[in-house]
């Protein structure tokens, strides 16, 4: 894992000390709220509906047992004993007190973590495939790239006050687990015909009010050109991106309004100028970073005995993926227990996950954008014991990729921007489909829920997307269908009029029944049926009265 250098360490400590002073000056009244607010946001501190919220980056989703344990400690000492993992590979604490936040940041710095770049119009926490370094289909580990971008972007003077926030995601695999097409910049590690490493570069993706998929701006960018090229994209955006309207300020709008060909021309010419300024130091830095992401020392190969216990087998089927070493596995720990809040973990659960990583899994954990926790390097001989301990901790729900593995943003239970709740909708859907056998029969299905148009719950790329709105003072839920966040990405289409809070779960049930009625064989997934048949059968299920009327006409 990446270890802080002396520079990193000093930098993070300085920021904590600086923020401590700022909090003191706010508390004694020498800073006004208007002065203080941008300062606290730069350190990840938001004011939500009922309390402050501290958002902490887990860079590219990677952490070790000690760091996870520190989250547990922070949750117990200064918060209410739990944390919430988000779709941006962050963790949020929902109840910090203002005067305690500097101590919380100090405790984070003790384990080489911080809360910078989790807010504001800067380059945000760079995210990466949560199976990095373990996936069977990976060309190269995307995390060194993410770390390089992090070092380059942290406090970058030119890009600290962008027109709007800026999100970058990286994957090293063909199969896109990092939703790179929904990011301002998406990077995919590829090789050219001669096997040289480089990137496919996408630009202009994003969800929110105007969802768009990223477009390829460069098919092959040699690896050593990454920073001058990404910097060129940011420069073009910074220079000609709109600042007159917050809702039109993301780079996706610029790409859309200017056209990808013109953007490419501008970026390429800026890139040529940049090249001269980059003297190769970035490559030396990259090589050092890459060395720190070397794979753990894997155990020697042995024969794996198949599991006999039925519960264990079912869990292995859904929550365990193949590892690039055949006698290893990737374990996804579901934070989607039936009826639970998606992405929440108690401090006890955090400590158990930390212990499992330390004892059995080369001391590595990951946070996925789907709000689950991953043990990326697990020798298969430990699976049974890991399952047993997870089960005792209420963490063995065998539902990864199934209907109850729902993404839900905090919504109006916490978020000040929300127009409706999202968590209770997820909880109710999960309870409705509690039976795991029924879930397995339904098969792969991604439901994603956002509590407002900002789309933190990625609803546009859910097979079934749900968006909570305020319609004349009442919660109302709009459904989108056919979204997909993988390499076959698509933006979901709106199904029709929204549903009231107590109608939304039955509506989802009708959608799933329609799917089961129309699938040609058991293996045809919800998304495949939608792509084969289009929205008609699903709309008919959602709006039976309209269907009856048109049949009568």
């Amino acid at each position, binding site marked *: 894992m990446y270890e802080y250098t002396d520079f990193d360490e000093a930098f993070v400590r300085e920021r904590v000390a600086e923020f401590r002073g700022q909090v003191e000056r706010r508390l004694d009244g020498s800073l006004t709220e208007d002065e203080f607010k941008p300062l606290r946001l730069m350190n990840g501190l938001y004011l939500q509906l009922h309390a402050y919220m501290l958002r902490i980056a887990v860079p590219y989703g990677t952490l070790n047992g000690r760091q996870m344990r520190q989250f547990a400690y922070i949750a117990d000492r200064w918060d209410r004993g739990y944390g919430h993992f988000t779709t941006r590979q962050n963790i949020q604490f929902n109840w910090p*007190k203002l005067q305690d936040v500097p101590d919380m940041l100090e405790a984070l710095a003790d384990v080489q973590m911080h809360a910078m770049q989790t807010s504001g119009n800067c380059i945000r926490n760079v995210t990466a495939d949560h199976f990095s370094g373990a996936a069977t289909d990976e060309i190269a580990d995307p995390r060194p790239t993410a770390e390089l971008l992090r070092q380059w972007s942290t406090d970058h003077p030119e890009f600290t006050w962008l027109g709007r926030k800026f999100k970058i995601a990286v994957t090293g695999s063909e199969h896109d687990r990092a939703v790179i097409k929904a990011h301002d910049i998406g990077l995919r590690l590829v090789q050219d015909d001669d096997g040289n490493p480089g990137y496919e570069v996408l630009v202009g993706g994003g969800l929110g009010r105007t969802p768009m998929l990223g477009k390829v701006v460069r098919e092959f960018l040699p690896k050593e050109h990454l920073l001058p090229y990404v910097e060129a994209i940011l420069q073009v955006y910074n220079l000609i991106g709109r600042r007159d309207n917050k809702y039109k300020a993301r780079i996706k709008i610029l790409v859309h309004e200017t056209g990808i060909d013109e953007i490419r021309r501008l970026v390429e010419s800026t890139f040529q100028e940049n090249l001269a300024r980059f003297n190769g130091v970035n490559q030396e830095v990259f090589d050092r970073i890459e060395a720190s992401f070397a794979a753990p020392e894997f155990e020697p190969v042995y024969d794996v005995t198949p599991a006999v216990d039925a519960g264990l087998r079912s869990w292995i089927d859904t929550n365990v993926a193949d590892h690039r070493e055949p006698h290893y596995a990737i374990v996804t720990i579901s934070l989607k227990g039936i009826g639970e809040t998606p992405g929440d973990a108690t401090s006890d659960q955090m400590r158990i996950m930390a212990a499992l990583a330390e004892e059995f899994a080369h001391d590595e954990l990951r946070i996925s954008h789907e709000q689950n926790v991953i043990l990326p390097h697990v020798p298969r001989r430990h699976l049974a014991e890991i399952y047993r301990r997870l089960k005792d901790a209420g963490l063995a729900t065998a539902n990864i990729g199934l209907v109850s593995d729902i993404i839900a943003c905090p919504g109006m239970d916490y978020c000040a921007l929300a127009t409706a709740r999202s968590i209770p909708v997820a909880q109710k859907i999960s309870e409705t489909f509690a039976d795991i056998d029924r879930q397995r029969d339904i098969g792969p299905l991604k439901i994603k829920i956002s509590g407002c148009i900002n789309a933190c719950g990625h609803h546009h790329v859910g097979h079934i997307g749900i968006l909570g709105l*305020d319609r004349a003072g009442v919660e109302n839920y709009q459904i989108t269908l056919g979204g997909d966040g993988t390499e076959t990405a698509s933006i979901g289409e709106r199904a029709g009029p929204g549903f009231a809070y107590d109608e939304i779960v039955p509506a989802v049930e009708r959608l799933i029944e329609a799917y089961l009625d129309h699938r040609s064989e058991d293996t045809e997934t919800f998304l495949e049926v939608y792509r084969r048949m289009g929205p008609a059968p699903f709309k008919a299920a959602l709006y039976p009265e309209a269907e009856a009327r048109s049949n009568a006409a």
Partner: protein
Amino acid sequence: MAKRFKPQIATGNDLLDGDVVYFTQGLKWSRFIGDAWIATNEEAAEVLQKEASKFPNDIVGVYLTDVAIDDEGRARPDHFREDFRMRGPSNRPEHGRPVERA
């Protein structure tokens, strides 16, 4: 004809813990909506806004919001957002806020 005035109260968040607070007729802040000073006309609302804004180092994000009035003449949330602010997160009842004074 002038639009019928909806009763309003002033609310905000405590600077220290972020908790929801309501401005009272005693020119203090309370955690209970039932204590809130209710403005029933345009002029009263202006006074309320002015008085409630005098605590910039204790209370943040102060705003006026419409309320309903219960049988005992106390303010009650008129919109579901204010209802959630009053009650705390609905997904974790154990972290709910006390709505009434114990």
